[in-house]
Protein backbone atom coordinates (compact mmCIF):
# COMPACT_ATOMS: atom_id res chain seq x y z
CA UNK A 1 0.00 0.00 0.00
CA UNK A 2 1.44 3.37 -0.98
CA UNK A 3 1.41 5.91 1.86
CA UNK A 4 -0.91 8.91 1.50
CA UNK A 5 -1.99 7.79 -1.97
CA UNK A 6 -5.48 6.39 -1.41
CA UNK A 7 -8.24 6.54 1.13
CA UNK A 8 -7.69 2.98 2.29
CA UNK A 9 -4.33 4.09 3.62
CA UNK A 10 -5.93 6.94 5.55
CA UNK A 11 -8.54 4.54 6.90
CA UNK A 12 -5.91 2.11 8.12
CA UNK A 13 -3.78 4.88 9.60
CA UNK A 14 -6.66 5.86 11.91
CA UNK A 15 -5.74 2.75 13.91
CA UNK A 16 -2.38 4.39 14.59
CA UNK A 17 -3.48 8.02 14.93
CA UNK A 18 -6.61 7.74 17.09
CA UNK A 19 -5.01 5.69 19.89
CA UNK A 20 -2.04 8.10 19.83
CA UNK A 21 -4.41 11.04 20.28
CA UNK A 22 -6.42 9.23 22.96
CA UNK A 23 -3.37 8.08 24.92
CA UNK A 24 -2.01 11.61 24.77
CA UNK A 25 -5.27 12.98 26.14
CA UNK A 26 -5.24 10.46 29.00
CA UNK A 27 -1.57 11.33 29.61
CA UNK A 28 -0.70 7.72 28.97
CA UNK A 29 1.20 8.23 25.75
CA UNK A 30 4.54 6.47 25.80
CA UNK A 31 7.23 6.04 23.18
CA UNK A 32 6.32 2.36 23.03
CA UNK A 33 3.13 3.29 21.20
CA UNK A 34 5.22 5.02 18.54
CA UNK A 35 7.23 1.81 18.08
CA UNK A 36 4.07 -0.34 17.87
CA UNK A 37 2.33 2.01 15.47
CA UNK A 38 5.37 2.17 13.21
CA UNK A 39 5.79 -1.61 13.18
CA UNK A 40 2.13 -2.12 12.33
CA UNK A 41 2.00 0.56 9.66
CA UNK A 42 5.23 -0.59 8.06
CA UNK A 43 3.88 -4.13 7.89
CA UNK A 44 0.81 -2.73 6.10
CA UNK A 45 2.97 -0.63 3.77
CA UNK A 46 5.72 -3.10 2.92
CA UNK A 47 4.44 -6.64 3.43
CA UNK A 48 4.40 -8.56 0.15
CA UNK A 49 4.50 -12.15 1.32
CA UNK A 50 7.51 -14.45 1.16
CA UNK A 51 10.05 -15.01 3.87
CA UNK A 52 13.21 -13.73 2.17
CA UNK A 53 14.39 -10.30 1.05
CA UNK A 54 11.97 -10.44 -1.89
CA UNK A 55 9.48 -9.38 0.76
CA UNK A 56 10.09 -5.62 1.06
CA UNK A 57 9.23 -5.68 4.74
CA UNK A 58 12.21 -7.89 5.53
CA UNK A 59 14.41 -6.02 3.09
CA UNK A 60 13.57 -2.75 4.84
CA UNK A 61 14.13 -4.19 8.32
CA UNK A 62 17.36 -5.84 7.16
CA UNK A 63 18.55 -2.51 5.84
CA UNK A 64 17.70 -0.76 9.11
CA UNK A 65 19.52 -3.44 11.13
CA UNK A 66 22.60 -3.06 8.95
CA UNK A 67 22.60 0.72 9.48
CA UNK A 68 22.08 0.32 13.21
CA UNK A 69 25.09 -2.04 13.47
CA UNK A 70 27.10 0.26 11.22
CA UNK A 71 26.39 3.29 13.41
CA UNK A 72 27.10 1.35 16.63
CA UNK A 73 30.40 0.08 15.26
CA UNK A 74 31.44 3.58 14.22
CA UNK A 75 30.48 4.97 17.63
CA UNK A 76 32.86 2.43 19.19
CA UNK A 77 35.67 2.99 16.71
CA UNK A 78 35.47 6.76 16.88
CA UNK A 79 37.01 6.71 20.34
CA UNK A 80 39.95 4.71 18.97
CA UNK A 81 42.81 5.99 16.86
CA UNK A 82 41.29 4.82 13.56
CA UNK A 83 38.69 7.60 13.48
CA UNK A 84 39.23 8.83 9.90
CA UNK A 85 39.27 5.47 8.10
CA UNK A 86 36.43 4.25 10.32
CA UNK A 87 34.37 7.28 9.29
CA UNK A 88 34.90 6.65 5.59
CA UNK A 89 34.13 2.97 6.01
CA UNK A 90 30.89 3.79 7.84
CA UNK A 91 29.90 6.30 5.12
CA UNK A 92 30.51 3.63 2.48
CA UNK A 93 28.35 1.07 4.29
CA UNK A 94 25.56 3.66 4.63
CA UNK A 95 25.71 4.53 0.93
CA UNK A 96 26.18 1.02 -0.45
CA UNK A 97 22.53 -0.11 -0.47
CA UNK A 98 21.44 3.08 -2.24
CA UNK A 99 24.25 2.77 -4.81
CA UNK A 100 23.48 -0.93 -5.32
CA UNK A 101 19.82 -0.05 -5.81
CA UNK A 102 20.68 2.64 -8.36
CA UNK A 103 23.17 0.63 -10.41
CA UNK A 104 21.67 -2.83 -10.40
CA UNK A 105 18.85 -3.27 -12.87
CA UNK A 106 15.35 -3.91 -11.64
CA UNK A 107 14.18 -3.03 -8.18
CA UNK A 108 15.11 -6.17 -6.25
CA UNK A 109 17.25 -4.20 -3.80
CA UNK A 110 15.05 -1.12 -3.64
CA UNK A 111 12.17 -0.31 -1.31
CA UNK A 112 10.07 2.82 -0.99
CA UNK A 113 11.92 5.37 1.14
CA UNK A 114 15.39 3.86 0.73
CA UNK A 115 16.96 7.13 -0.40
CA UNK A 116 15.34 9.12 2.43
CA UNK A 117 16.45 6.62 5.05
CA UNK A 118 19.96 6.89 3.62
CA UNK A 119 19.95 10.64 4.35
CA UNK A 120 18.96 9.96 7.93
CA UNK A 121 21.54 7.25 8.53
CA UNK A 122 24.23 9.55 7.09
CA UNK A 123 23.09 12.33 9.43
CA UNK A 124 23.70 10.00 12.39
CA UNK A 125 27.21 9.18 11.15
CA UNK A 126 28.07 12.87 10.72
CA UNK A 127 26.69 13.55 14.19
CA UNK A 128 28.88 10.82 15.71
CA UNK A 129 31.93 12.11 13.82
CA UNK A 130 31.34 15.67 15.09
CA UNK A 131 30.87 14.46 18.64
CA UNK A 132 27.28 15.66 18.93
CA UNK A 133 25.90 12.11 19.14
CA UNK A 134 27.39 10.00 21.91
CA UNK A 135 24.72 7.38 22.47
CA UNK A 136 22.33 5.53 20.18
CA UNK A 137 19.37 4.12 22.11
CA UNK A 138 17.82 1.42 19.89
CA UNK A 139 14.19 2.55 20.20
CA UNK A 140 15.04 6.17 19.41
CA UNK A 141 17.34 5.24 16.53
CA UNK A 142 14.81 2.87 14.97
CA UNK A 143 12.04 5.47 15.15
CA UNK A 144 14.28 8.19 13.77
CA UNK A 145 15.09 5.98 10.81
CA UNK A 146 11.75 4.28 10.23
CA UNK A 147 8.95 6.39 11.76
CA UNK A 148 6.07 5.42 9.47
CA UNK A 149 4.78 8.95 8.90
CA UNK A 150 7.99 10.15 7.27
CA UNK A 151 9.64 6.94 6.05
CA UNK A 152 8.67 7.13 2.38
CA UNK A 153 9.54 10.71 1.38
CA UNK A 154 10.63 12.76 4.37
CA UNK A 155 10.78 15.48 5.60
CA UNK A 156 14.36 14.52 6.43
CA UNK A 157 14.67 15.02 10.16
CA UNK A 158 17.94 15.25 12.14
CA UNK A 159 18.76 12.77 14.88
CA UNK A 160 19.56 15.38 17.52
CA UNK A 161 16.48 17.45 16.75
CA UNK A 162 14.31 14.31 16.70
CA UNK A 163 15.79 13.37 20.09
CA UNK A 164 14.40 16.54 21.66
CA UNK A 165 10.85 15.60 20.62
CA UNK A 166 11.47 11.99 21.60
CA UNK A 167 12.37 12.89 25.18
CA UNK A 168 9.83 15.69 25.64
CA UNK A 169 6.85 15.16 27.93
CA UNK A 170 3.80 16.98 26.65
CA UNK A 171 1.48 19.07 28.80
CA UNK A 172 -2.25 19.00 28.05
CA UNK A 173 -1.96 22.33 26.27
CA UNK A 174 0.88 21.04 24.12
CA UNK A 175 -1.04 17.89 23.34
CA UNK A 176 -4.00 19.99 22.20
CA UNK A 177 -1.75 22.16 20.03
CA UNK A 178 -0.28 19.01 18.45
CA UNK A 179 -3.70 17.59 17.62
CA UNK A 180 -4.80 20.96 16.27
CA UNK A 181 -1.63 21.36 14.19
CA UNK A 182 -1.91 17.77 13.01
CA UNK A 183 -5.50 18.09 11.83
CA UNK A 184 -4.83 21.41 10.12
CA UNK A 185 -1.92 19.94 8.19
CA UNK A 186 -3.82 16.82 7.22
CA UNK A 187 -6.63 18.94 5.77
CA UNK A 188 -4.09 21.12 3.97
CA UNK A 189 -2.75 17.87 2.56
CA UNK A 190 -6.20 16.85 1.30
CA UNK A 191 -6.70 20.25 -0.32
CA UNK A 192 -3.27 20.29 -1.98
CA UNK A 193 -2.89 16.68 -3.06
CA UNK A 194 -6.37 15.33 -3.62
CA UNK A 195 -8.08 18.48 -4.86
CA UNK A 196 -5.60 20.96 -6.38
CA UNK A 197 -2.92 18.57 -7.64
CA UNK A 198 -5.54 16.10 -8.84
CA UNK A 199 -7.46 18.81 -10.73
CA UNK A 200 -4.28 20.23 -12.26
CA UNK A 201 -3.28 16.76 -13.40
CA UNK A 202 -6.60 15.79 -14.87
CA UNK A 203 -7.59 19.02 -16.61
CA UNK A 204 -4.26 20.64 -17.38
CA UNK A 205 -1.19 18.41 -17.23
CA UNK A 206 -2.74 15.38 -18.94
CA UNK A 207 -4.44 17.62 -21.49
CA UNK A 208 -1.21 19.00 -22.95
CA UNK A 209 0.37 16.30 -25.04
CA UNK A 210 1.56 17.89 -28.29
CA UNK A 211 5.22 18.51 -29.05
CA UNK A 212 4.85 22.12 -30.26
CA UNK A 213 6.47 24.91 -28.30
CA UNK A 214 3.15 26.25 -26.97
CA UNK A 215 2.22 22.86 -25.59
CA UNK A 216 5.63 22.42 -23.99
CA UNK A 217 5.34 25.81 -22.28
CA UNK A 218 1.87 24.93 -21.00
CA UNK A 219 3.25 21.62 -19.76
CA UNK A 220 6.02 23.47 -17.91
CA UNK A 221 3.55 25.58 -15.93
CA UNK A 222 1.19 22.68 -15.30
CA UNK A 223 3.97 20.39 -14.16
CA UNK A 224 5.47 23.02 -11.84
CA UNK A 225 2.17 23.60 -10.05
CA UNK A 226 1.34 19.90 -10.02
CA UNK A 227 4.71 19.07 -8.48
CA UNK A 228 4.30 21.70 -5.79
CA UNK A 229 0.76 20.80 -4.72
CA UNK A 230 1.42 17.08 -4.88
CA UNK A 231 4.64 17.16 -2.85
CA UNK A 232 3.66 19.96 -0.48
CA UNK A 233 0.42 18.06 0.11
CA UNK A 234 2.32 14.89 0.83
CA UNK A 235 4.65 16.77 3.21
CA UNK A 236 1.69 18.31 5.01
CA UNK A 237 0.27 14.81 5.63
CA UNK A 238 3.60 13.50 6.86
CA UNK A 239 4.17 16.39 9.27
CA UNK A 240 0.53 16.31 10.37
CA UNK A 241 0.64 12.58 11.17
CA UNK A 242 3.87 13.07 13.11
CA UNK A 243 2.26 15.78 15.27
CA UNK A 244 -0.16 13.18 16.66
CA UNK A 245 2.87 11.43 18.15
CA UNK A 246 4.47 14.59 19.50
CA UNK A 247 7.09 14.62 16.75
CA UNK A 248 7.57 17.90 14.86
CA UNK A 249 9.57 17.20 11.70
CA UNK A 250 10.95 20.27 9.90
CA UNK A 251 8.56 21.88 7.40
CA UNK A 252 9.45 21.21 3.77
CA UNK A 253 7.85 24.21 2.02
CA UNK A 254 7.54 27.90 2.75
CA UNK A 255 5.82 29.69 -0.15
CA UNK A 256 8.50 28.71 -2.71
CA UNK A 257 7.04 30.71 -5.61
CA UNK A 258 7.48 33.95 -3.67
CA UNK A 259 11.26 33.47 -3.82
CA UNK A 260 13.22 36.48 -5.06
CA UNK A 261 16.28 34.62 -6.25
CA UNK A 262 17.54 31.07 -6.57
CA UNK A 263 19.17 30.97 -3.16
CA UNK A 264 15.96 32.19 -1.63
CA UNK A 265 14.12 29.48 -3.57
CA UNK A 266 16.19 26.66 -2.04
CA UNK A 267 15.42 28.04 1.41
CA UNK A 268 11.74 27.56 0.59
CA UNK A 269 11.49 24.42 -1.58
CA UNK A 270 12.02 20.88 -0.24
CA UNK A 271 13.78 22.61 2.63
CA UNK A 272 14.79 19.53 4.58
CA UNK A 273 16.60 18.18 1.50
CA UNK A 274 18.35 21.41 0.51
CA UNK A 275 19.44 22.07 4.10
CA UNK A 276 20.81 18.55 4.25
CA UNK A 277 22.95 19.22 1.18
CA UNK A 278 23.93 22.63 2.52
CA UNK A 279 25.09 21.24 5.88
CA UNK A 280 26.68 17.99 4.81
CA UNK A 281 27.99 18.65 1.30
CA UNK A 282 28.34 22.37 0.59
CA UNK A 283 29.51 23.55 4.03
CA UNK A 284 31.90 20.67 4.55
CA UNK A 285 33.38 21.01 1.09
CA UNK A 286 33.88 24.78 1.53
CA UNK A 287 35.31 24.31 5.03
CA UNK A 288 37.81 21.67 3.89
CA UNK A 289 38.91 23.70 0.89
CA UNK A 290 39.36 26.96 2.83
CA UNK A 291 41.23 25.14 5.58
CA UNK A 292 43.43 23.24 3.16
CA UNK A 293 43.91 26.34 0.96
CA UNK A 294 42.99 24.33 -2.14
CA UNK A 295 42.17 27.32 -4.36
CA UNK A 296 43.85 30.64 -5.09
CA UNK A 297 40.64 32.57 -5.63
CA UNK A 298 38.58 32.93 -2.48
CA UNK A 299 35.28 32.26 -4.19
CA UNK A 300 36.25 29.24 -6.26
CA UNK A 301 35.29 27.00 -3.33
CA UNK A 302 31.81 28.54 -3.11
CA UNK A 303 31.21 28.19 -6.85
CA UNK A 304 32.45 24.59 -7.03
CA UNK A 305 30.42 23.85 -3.90
CA UNK A 306 27.21 24.82 -5.71
CA UNK A 307 27.93 22.48 -8.61
CA UNK A 308 28.96 19.70 -6.28
CA UNK A 309 25.95 19.81 -3.97
CA UNK A 310 23.36 20.49 -6.66
CA UNK A 311 24.98 17.93 -8.99
CA UNK A 312 24.73 15.31 -6.24
CA UNK A 313 21.16 16.36 -5.57
CA UNK A 314 20.37 15.70 -9.25
CA UNK A 315 22.09 12.31 -9.29
CA UNK A 316 20.26 11.37 -6.09
CA UNK A 317 16.96 11.60 -8.00
CA UNK A 318 18.24 9.08 -10.51
CA UNK A 319 20.98 8.41 -13.04
CA UNK A 320 18.95 9.46 -16.08
CA UNK A 321 20.42 12.34 -18.12
CA UNK A 322 17.57 14.74 -17.28
CA UNK A 323 18.21 14.41 -13.54
CA UNK A 324 21.92 15.07 -13.94
CA UNK A 325 21.27 18.09 -16.17
CA UNK A 326 18.67 19.31 -13.67
CA UNK A 327 21.25 19.25 -10.88
CA UNK A 328 23.91 21.01 -12.94
CA UNK A 329 21.35 23.57 -14.12
CA UNK A 330 20.65 24.53 -10.51
CA UNK A 331 24.36 24.50 -9.72
CA UNK A 332 24.90 26.96 -12.56
CA UNK A 333 21.98 29.16 -11.44
CA UNK A 334 23.29 29.35 -7.88
CA UNK A 335 26.75 30.16 -9.19
CA UNK A 336 25.34 32.96 -11.35
CA UNK A 337 23.18 34.30 -8.51
CA UNK A 338 26.15 34.43 -6.18
CA UNK A 339 28.48 35.94 -8.78
CA UNK A 340 26.00 38.64 -9.79
CA UNK A 341 25.27 39.47 -6.14
CA UNK A 342 28.94 39.99 -5.52
CA UNK A 343 29.57 41.91 -8.74
CA UNK A 344 26.60 44.27 -8.31
CA UNK A 345 26.60 44.41 -4.55
CA UNK A 346 26.51 48.21 -4.44
CA UNK A 347 24.34 48.80 -7.50
CA UNK A 348 21.40 50.80 -6.32
CA UNK A 349 18.99 49.74 -9.07
CA UNK A 350 19.59 46.01 -8.65
CA UNK A 351 19.20 46.17 -4.90
CA UNK A 352 16.18 48.42 -4.83
CA UNK A 353 13.17 47.29 -2.91
CA UNK A 354 10.61 48.86 -5.21
CA UNK A 355 7.42 46.98 -5.94
CA UNK A 356 8.32 46.72 -9.61
CA UNK A 357 11.75 45.27 -8.98
CA UNK A 358 10.43 42.85 -6.38
CA UNK A 359 7.76 41.64 -8.78
CA UNK A 360 10.25 41.33 -11.62
CA UNK A 361 12.69 39.25 -9.58
CA UNK A 362 9.93 36.94 -8.33
CA UNK A 363 8.66 36.55 -11.91
CA UNK A 364 12.14 35.76 -13.24
CA UNK A 365 12.96 33.33 -10.41
CA UNK A 366 9.67 31.51 -10.91
CA UNK A 367 10.40 31.02 -14.60
CA UNK A 368 13.95 29.84 -14.06
CA UNK A 369 12.64 27.36 -11.51
CA UNK A 370 9.80 26.20 -13.78
CA UNK A 371 12.21 25.61 -16.63
CA UNK A 372 14.26 23.50 -14.22
CA UNK A 373 11.20 21.38 -13.48
CA UNK A 374 10.58 20.99 -17.20
CA UNK A 375 14.08 19.48 -17.46
CA UNK A 376 13.37 17.41 -14.36
CA UNK A 377 10.12 16.06 -15.82
CA UNK A 378 12.06 14.27 -18.57
CA UNK A 379 9.82 15.66 -21.26
CA UNK A 380 12.65 17.44 -23.10
CA UNK A 381 15.09 14.50 -23.26
Amino acid at each position, binding site marked *: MTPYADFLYFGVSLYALLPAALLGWLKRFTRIWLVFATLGMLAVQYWQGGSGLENKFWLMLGYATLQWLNARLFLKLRAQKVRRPAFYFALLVALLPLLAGKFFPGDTLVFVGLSYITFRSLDVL*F*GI*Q*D*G*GIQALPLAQYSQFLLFFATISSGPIDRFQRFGQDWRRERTSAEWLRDIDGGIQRIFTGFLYKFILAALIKQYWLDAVSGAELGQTIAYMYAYTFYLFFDFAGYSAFAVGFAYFFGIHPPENFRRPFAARDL*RDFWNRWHISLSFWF*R*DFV*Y*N*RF*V*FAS*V*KGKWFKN*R*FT*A*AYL*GYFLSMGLMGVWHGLAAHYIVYGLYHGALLFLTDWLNRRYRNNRLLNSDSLFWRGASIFLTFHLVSFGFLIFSGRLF
Partner: protein
Amino acid sequence: MNISEIVLTELEKVTETDEVRRNLDLMLFDEKILDSFGSMELMVALSEQFGLEITPGQVEREQWTSPRKIIAYVQERLKEIH
Protein backbone atom coordinates in the same frame (compact mmCIF):
# COMPACT_ATOMS: atom_id res chain seq x y z
CA MET B 1 44.29 42.24 21.45
CA ASN B 2 41.29 40.95 23.29
CA ILE B 3 38.96 38.22 22.06
CA SER B 4 36.18 40.39 20.71
CA GLU B 5 38.65 42.57 18.82
CA ILE B 6 40.11 39.54 17.04
CA VAL B 7 36.67 38.11 16.25
CA LEU B 8 35.46 41.45 14.86
CA THR B 9 38.59 41.86 12.75
CA GLU B 10 38.09 38.42 11.18
CA LEU B 11 34.37 39.00 10.76
CA GLU B 12 35.10 42.30 9.04
CA LYS B 13 37.52 40.57 6.66
CA VAL B 14 35.02 37.86 5.73
CA THR B 15 32.00 40.14 5.31
CA GLU B 16 33.92 43.07 3.81
CA THR B 17 31.94 45.62 5.83
CA ASP B 18 32.58 47.49 9.07
CA GLU B 19 28.88 47.42 9.90
CA VAL B 20 29.61 44.30 11.97
CA ARG B 21 31.75 46.47 14.22
CA ARG B 22 29.25 49.27 14.62
CA ASN B 23 26.29 47.10 15.52
CA LEU B 24 27.01 44.00 17.59
CA ASP B 25 23.40 42.84 17.36
CA LEU B 26 23.30 42.95 13.59
CA MET B 27 21.35 39.95 12.26
CA LEU B 28 24.09 38.62 10.03
CA PHE B 29 22.14 36.00 8.08
CA ASP B 30 18.85 37.90 7.85
CA GLU B 31 20.64 40.99 6.55
CA LYS B 32 22.55 38.83 4.05
CA ILE B 33 25.87 40.01 5.43
CA LEU B 34 27.02 36.49 6.25
CA ASP B 35 26.10 33.35 4.34
CA SER B 36 27.12 29.69 4.59
CA PHE B 37 30.29 30.41 2.65
CA GLY B 38 31.33 33.32 4.89
CA SER B 39 30.47 31.23 7.93
CA MET B 40 32.89 28.52 6.84
CA GLU B 41 35.66 31.05 6.15
CA LEU B 42 35.09 32.54 9.57
CA MET B 43 35.31 29.13 11.27
CA VAL B 44 38.66 28.44 9.63
CA ALA B 45 39.97 31.91 10.48
CA LEU B 46 38.87 31.79 14.12
CA SER B 47 40.22 28.23 14.51
CA GLU B 48 43.64 29.48 13.38
CA GLN B 49 43.55 32.65 15.47
CA PHE B 50 42.59 30.96 18.72
CA GLY B 51 44.09 27.51 18.22
CA LEU B 52 40.62 26.00 18.49
CA GLU B 53 38.96 23.32 16.42
CA ILE B 54 35.74 24.96 15.24
CA THR B 55 34.02 22.75 12.63
CA PRO B 56 30.73 23.02 10.72
CA GLY B 57 29.33 20.06 12.65
CA GLN B 58 29.70 21.80 16.01
CA VAL B 59 28.16 25.16 15.26
CA GLU B 60 24.43 25.60 14.95
CA ARG B 61 23.39 28.50 12.78
CA GLU B 62 21.43 29.99 15.73
CA GLN B 63 24.70 30.35 17.62
CA TRP B 64 26.15 32.63 14.94
CA THR B 65 23.30 35.04 14.17
CA SER B 66 25.02 38.24 15.42
CA PRO B 67 28.58 39.49 16.07
CA ARG B 68 27.85 39.45 19.79
CA LYS B 69 26.81 35.80 19.65
CA ILE B 70 29.90 34.78 17.73
CA ILE B 71 32.11 36.51 20.30
CA ALA B 72 30.22 34.75 23.10
CA TYR B 73 30.63 31.41 21.32
CA VAL B 74 34.40 31.84 21.04
CA GLN B 75 34.68 32.96 24.68
CA GLU B 76 32.72 29.91 25.75
CA ARG B 77 34.92 27.57 23.74
CA LEU B 78 38.09 29.17 25.13
CA LYS B 79 36.79 28.80 28.67
CA GLU B 80 36.40 25.06 28.13
CA ILE B 81 40.10 24.74 27.40
CA HIS B 82 41.40 26.72 30.36
